[in-house]
């Protein structure tokens, strides 16, 4: 049979793709990925994806071979968060696929677009408990936006097209495609659909004029308004619109943890982060506001403390979100706007007028001056907060910071003032230890010319530190700052405060020598134990043209303050012992 072979000219340096040619499922997949403008693939091979890896051989794609599938998916996630483009990860069947699970859940909780491709055993073996068989679509149902099991190679192009569409539109999220080996090997003429047609799936969400008018109306009546800007600012790319809106209406802005960087932390209207470890002013703003404007923020229990009836008690709550299920989910809302933040603000900007908020702003500034984040410095002891301040000052807030999970994560959120969108990358929703370091690899690959710093604890770093190999293998110049308190710090803090100093299973004194460990992987390693050393060593690290791991030996007993204990309300805030 002769086929008509059309060739689609490559764009943006992408190779051309031929249509109509008989190719295998594996080759089909790769052609789809080219057409989706994918450049980087993070992954790990195995039996069920051998056909795909064979097609990858010598191909155009830049494949990053991590040392664990969890590393691959967090790296893909970091890449996606740093760029807004979907991250792509490939893993084999069974254990390869199940090693992705934590990363998929992490991405789902933070609405990160990922396309996860897993292999599976041939369909003839499905359901037989075959070697390395796992029902990964079943396992991941609760943690994916959607998933596919591919039964026929002819469905593959449509499925890949849909997967990218679903992952990146609406409220973004991870989509899984499970491809049995027989489908990767089967052949069919290659075609790619031009359009996606998914019945009932709404992807573009522009709010109605009526909703936007109500939104603007309520805001204009407020005297003590505050914007609570969440991760939706970043994923919808609304940072410029937010800034223009806040300035035009004279409304101070709180950035939720996921929203850090979506509004410049150095702006005169910036109040910083609210919630459990948020600052005094941001929390007071919520307690005293007469109008809280949630923009792409989901009123998470780290902010409402689960006491939703007592949250922002004097305020009318206005909520804009692309996901209608978030509106009214956690708190009672006066005005609900279903829309992505960017198009909502674009529509609202010409209508908005200046609020009568100067008195309110003056009060907030007073609080800010009276109650900044604070800690006690000591000459010979390095304080973790001091390290974060050092990172901030040395990079002037221009670096991309990824963090792991624990105390250091909160200090990074508190003491680094993020100026730009997509410059703070951290697992907010799931709180995944082991995330920070591989995520930095993904972010650095996406932005080879920017300074990317992974701020990690000595605990979490050891969950994925084998990815140090990637730094040397692919020359990825990530700077790793280990905030080494020789224990599971955040757990230590809770045990001190709520379990009567009964320190159960938090001792990490028997960790490896991180300097030697780094060197074993061919990565420069440095150590600092005093404020003075820290400065010198960090300057050396920044100057070094390549990856560096710095082991910052910090005071062990330091706690994250302010703190609102779980179960309390925002006015029951402990400012700390400084």
């Amino acid at each position, binding site marked *: 049979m002769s086929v008509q072979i059309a060739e689609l000219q490559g764009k943006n340096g992408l190779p051309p793709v031929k249509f109509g040619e008989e190719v295998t499922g594996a080759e089909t997949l790769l052609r789809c990925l080219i057409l989706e403008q994918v450049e980087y693939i993070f992954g790990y091979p195995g039996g069920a994806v051998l056909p795909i890896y064979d097609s990858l051989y010598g191909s155009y794609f830049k494949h990053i071979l991590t040392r664990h599938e969890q590393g691959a998916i967090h790296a893909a996630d970091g890449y996606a968060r740093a760029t807004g483009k979907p991250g792509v990860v490939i893993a084999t069947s069974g254990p390869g696929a199940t090693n992705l699970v934590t990363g998929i859940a992490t991405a789902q909780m933070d609405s990160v677009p990922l396309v996860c491709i897993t292999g599976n055993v041939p369909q003839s073996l499905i359901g037989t408990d075959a070697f390395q068989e796992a029902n990964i*679509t*079943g396992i991941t*149902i*609760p943690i994916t*936006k*959607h998933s596919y*099991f591919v039964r026929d190679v002819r469905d593959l192009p449509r499925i890949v097209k849909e997967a990218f569409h*679903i992952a990146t539109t609406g409220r973004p999220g991870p989509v899984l495609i499970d491809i049995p080996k027989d489908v990767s090997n089967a052949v069919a003429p290659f075609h790619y659909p031009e359009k996606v047609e*998914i*019945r*009932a*799936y*709404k992807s573009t969400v522009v709010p109605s004029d009526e909703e936007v008018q109500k939104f603007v109306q309520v805001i204009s009546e407020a005297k003590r308004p505050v914007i609570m800007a969440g991760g939706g600012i970043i994923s919808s790319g609304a940072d410029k619109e937010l800034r223009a809106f806040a300035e035009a209406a004279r409304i101070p802005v709180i950035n939720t943890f996921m929203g850090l960087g979506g509004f410049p932390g150095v702006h005169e209207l910036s109040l910083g982060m609210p919630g459990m470890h948020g600052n005094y002013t941001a929390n007071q703003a919520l307690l005293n506001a007469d109008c809280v404007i949630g923009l792409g923020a989901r009123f998470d229990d780290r902010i409402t403390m689960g006491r939703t009836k007592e949250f922002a008690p004097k305020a009318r709550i206005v909520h804009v979100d692309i*996901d*209608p*299920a978030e509106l*009214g*989910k956690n708190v009672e809302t006066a005005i609900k706007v*279903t829309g992505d933040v960017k198009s909502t603000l674009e529509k609202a900007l010409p209508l908005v007028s200046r609020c009568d908020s100067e008195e309110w702003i003056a009060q907030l500034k007073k609080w800010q001056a009276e109650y900044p984040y604070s800690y006690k410095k000591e000459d010979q002891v390095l304080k973790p907060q001091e390290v974060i301040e050092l990172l901030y000052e040395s990079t002037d807030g221009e670096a991309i910071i990824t963090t792991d999970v624990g105390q250091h994560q909160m200090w990074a959120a508190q003491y680094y003032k993020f100026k730009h969108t997509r410059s703070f990358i951290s697992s907010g929703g799931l709180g995944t230890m082991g995330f920070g370091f591989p995520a930095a690899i993904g972010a650095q690959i996406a932005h080879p010319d920017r300074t990317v710093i992974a701020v990690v604890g000595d605990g979490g770093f050891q969950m994925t530190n084998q990815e140090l190999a990637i730094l040397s293998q692919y020359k990825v110049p990530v700077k790793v700052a280990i905030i080494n308190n020789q224990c599971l710090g955040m757990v230590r803090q809770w045990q001190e405060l709520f379990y009567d100093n009964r320190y159960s299973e938090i001792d990490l004194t028997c960790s490896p020598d991180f300097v030697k460990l780094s060197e074993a992987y061919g990565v420069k390693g440095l150590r600092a134990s005093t404020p003075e050393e820290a400065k010198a060593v960090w300057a050396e690290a920044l100057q070094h043209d390549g990856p560096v791991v710095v082991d910052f030996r910090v005071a062990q007993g330091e706690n994250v303050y302010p703190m609102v204990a779980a179960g309390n309300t925002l006015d029951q805030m402990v400012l700390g012992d400084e």
Partner: protein
Amino acid sequence: MQRHTIAILVNDQPGVLTRVATLFGQRGFNIDSITVGGSEEPGLSRMIITTGGDEQKIDQLMKQLYKLIDVITVTNLSENAFVSRELALIKVSASPSQLAELNAIVEPFRATIVDVGPNSLIVQVTGDTEKIDALLVLLETYGIIEVTRTGSMAMARSVVPVPASV
């Protein structure tokens, strides 16, 4: 806690039942009954699920259901007048000599005896849940050996229900 009967129109895809059922579990809802079958359109199935929860929680559940890619529409039938039916087969401990007596009991329920054995017979009944419960109470005096029920099938009365908006 109120009872709700929810109709969900879904793509007839493998795994779609698991997705819907998982979502109920994930969001803390217990499924009291679930029926699934074809619909008026080829390729689409309709699920009828009965569950409990207050207004606000059900509203949230319906919005979450809408987020599933294979879900086409979600309707809370309990918001308007609707018809609901269940089918039950009830095996009763009785001998053929008691047939007339049992017939007299099941007839007002428009139930029928569909099988007679030496020591047992099977009653088939359709109706709403309460009616079936009522018949079960009457038959209990004879001894019930086995019961199998379909769970609710349901449909809005006369007017076409408007699916929950998202």
